[in-house]
């Protein structure tokens, strides 16, 4: 019977486990389906880190064994894959990036007391008192206040139009942002949902125009951001276009051509940060995978080094202890250069970093101001 179980491919392969010389740190991420762009960035970031670390002899002398499991951007499948790796007693688990999938999986990892280093940014992830989930980037409840302050103080807007992509990423950002606007009593005069993979933004831009708000907050994925910017330029939108990380990314700038000029906003994590370490990383990444990595690449990369640092700090592989150690921990570039920037994990597993206010000038992202960590 057990033979049959194996032959049915139901029994999980035994070789995938921590051994004397390797540590099993699987990654369950979006490698196909709508999430594939973020997923591959995240993956390549991790791979780069793993290669570097293993080349230097691994963590505490153990090489990292990181199988990649695709979730097809599907919550149900993501759950099955998490279950699969949990059966093999992983040290920690990386991913997923889609918040929906994260929400399914953290229930399991918490039960199994295995730390999960996620890429999801939805606020809810860290608001469940889960002791085993750790972010690699700002949750929307951290990034949106920053951008909201900027809209109030930087742009001095009294009214704002929101253009968002109707998936869990876009909706989450939109909801949090709307809340922050209310707190600063800035009127949301247009609230425009767009579809992922939408080609023609003329209708949306027309609406934005009609609303004539003091500022326009654009929260879309990369290609859609680019298409929107093109259309906005075409129809001569005058109001400042404000974005969060994606909108100011080099990818969008390249795709949108001239249309991204003058776009402003908050940048959580960016390869364009005025920090040598980050730019060296970006160069290494480009050299290795020959494409320009986005913030998900940095998330994956620093995520692995985060695990490395914590483990070496503990001096042993202990998933439970990992969770305890990592909460409230601050890692400075001095302690671990490849963390790229100083980062702190609070008691919920939320990450706090410096972030930036940027502007697109001459086809490049120019950082105009560095925002301190919230903790300071």
């Amino acid at each position: 019977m057990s033979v049959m179980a194996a032959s049915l491919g139901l029994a999980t392969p035994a070789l995938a486990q921590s051994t004397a010389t390797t540590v099993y740190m699987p990654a369950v991420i979006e490698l196909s389906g709508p999430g594939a762009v973020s997923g591959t960035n995240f993956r390549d970031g991790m791979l780069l880190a793993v290669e570097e670390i293993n080349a230097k002899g691994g963590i505490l002398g153990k090489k990292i064994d990181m199988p990649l499991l695709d979730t097809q951007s599907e919550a149900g499948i993501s759950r099955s894959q998490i279950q699969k790796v949990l059966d093999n007693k992983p040290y920690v688990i990386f991913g997923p990036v889609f918040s929906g999938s994260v929400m399914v999986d953290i229930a399991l990892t918490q039960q199994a007391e295995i730390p999960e280093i996620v890429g999801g940014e939805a606020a809810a992830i860290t608001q469940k008192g889960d002791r085993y989930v750790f972010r690699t980037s700002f949750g929307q409840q951290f990034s949106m206040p920053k951008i909201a302050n900027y809209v109030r103080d930087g742009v001095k807007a009294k009214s704002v139009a929101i253009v968002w992509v109707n998936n869990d990423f876009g909706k989450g950002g939109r909801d949090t942002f709307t809340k922050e606007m209310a707190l600063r009593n800035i009127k949301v005069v247009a609230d425009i949902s767009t579809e992922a993979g939408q080609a023609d933004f003329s209708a949306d831009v027309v609406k934005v125009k009609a609303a004539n708000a003091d500022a326009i907050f654009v929260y879309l994925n990369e290609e859609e951001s680019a298409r929107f910017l093109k259309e906005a330029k075409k129809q001569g939108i005058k109001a400042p276009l404000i974005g969060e990380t994606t909108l100011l990314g080099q990818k969008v700038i390249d795709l949108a051509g001239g249309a991204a000029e003058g776009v402003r906003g908050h940048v959580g994590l960016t390869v364009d940060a005025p920090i040598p370490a980050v730019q060296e990383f970006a160069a290494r990444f480009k050299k290795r995978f020959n494409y320009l990595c986005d913030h998900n690449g940095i998330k994956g990369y620093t995520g692995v080094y985060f695990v490395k640092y914590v483990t070496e700090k503990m001096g042993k592989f202990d998933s439970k202890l990992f969770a305890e150690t990592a909460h409230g921990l601050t890692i400075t570039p001095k302690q671990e250069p490849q963390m790229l920037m100083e980062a702190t994990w609070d008691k919920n597993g939320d990450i706090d970093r410096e972030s930036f206010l940027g502007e697109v000038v001459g086809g490049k992202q120019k950082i105009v101001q560095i925002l301190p960590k919230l903790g300071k």
Partner: protein
Amino acid sequence: MRVPMASFIQLLVSGLATGAIYALIAVGFTLLWQTSQTINFAQGEFVMLPAFFILAAMNFGAPFWLAALVGIVLSVLVLGVVFKLIIVDPMLKHGVLPLVISTIALSLFLKEAAKDFYSSQAQPFPTLVPAVDLHIFDAVISTDSLAVLAVAVATVVALHLLLHKTRLGRSMQATAQNPTLARILGIPVRRMVLYTFLINGVLVAIASILISPIYLAKFTNGETLGMTAFLAAIIGGFNQVRGAILGGVILGILDNLSAAYISSQYRGAFPLLILIAVILLRPQGLLGRIEERTV
């Protein structure tokens, strides 16, 4: 929120441009259906792929025009000939459903192939003409969307002439409408069917060249495109080339108008509602003819 009627023209024109591309794809879709009862659920991926052929060719240093040519040829071979011989032919005699399953699988196959063997990242794609914004009334129309419109219309007209004014075209139509009779009339039915697949190959390649500058070449492009073209084909008339064109244009414009004046959250719903209405009230589609052949 009120949207000024002045923007109406704006929406109309850009809707027209997008609709024209939908039309191209829908036409190919109906051609396959007419001649071989193939419901090609991979049609969207057929449009996604040629862009990557072209980019690949350009990576080998080919100039755009040459690369485009290569792209068209490749898509005629791969998406026309190979598709017909390897996937459609073996299954024709087994009815519609097995083939439907195959084309669904094929769409997954092509998506994954583009992702794994080229890139998961969206790729910039050269435009046919430099984008210059022209101001007409209150509307701003960029030259590239005009170019898109022009090429699409030209293609459709050419196709129309081919189908109605040439002997070849008439035999193809005969094949489409009544293969048995066509065979009796001595028309080489099998070759005619093959031709429609070749034509589809050309159409999707052109559509790909037109839409990739806007969409950017990305492996997921087919998903929305395919479905929209599919709806366009049915709304316009599943078995009429003219109908497919009408359907495409309707959807392009409808999408913009509904998003601007009714609801952007439900912009995707209107084509579906129209589809249901059309099928229930006029199953053969707006311009379609009643099918004498049940499938």
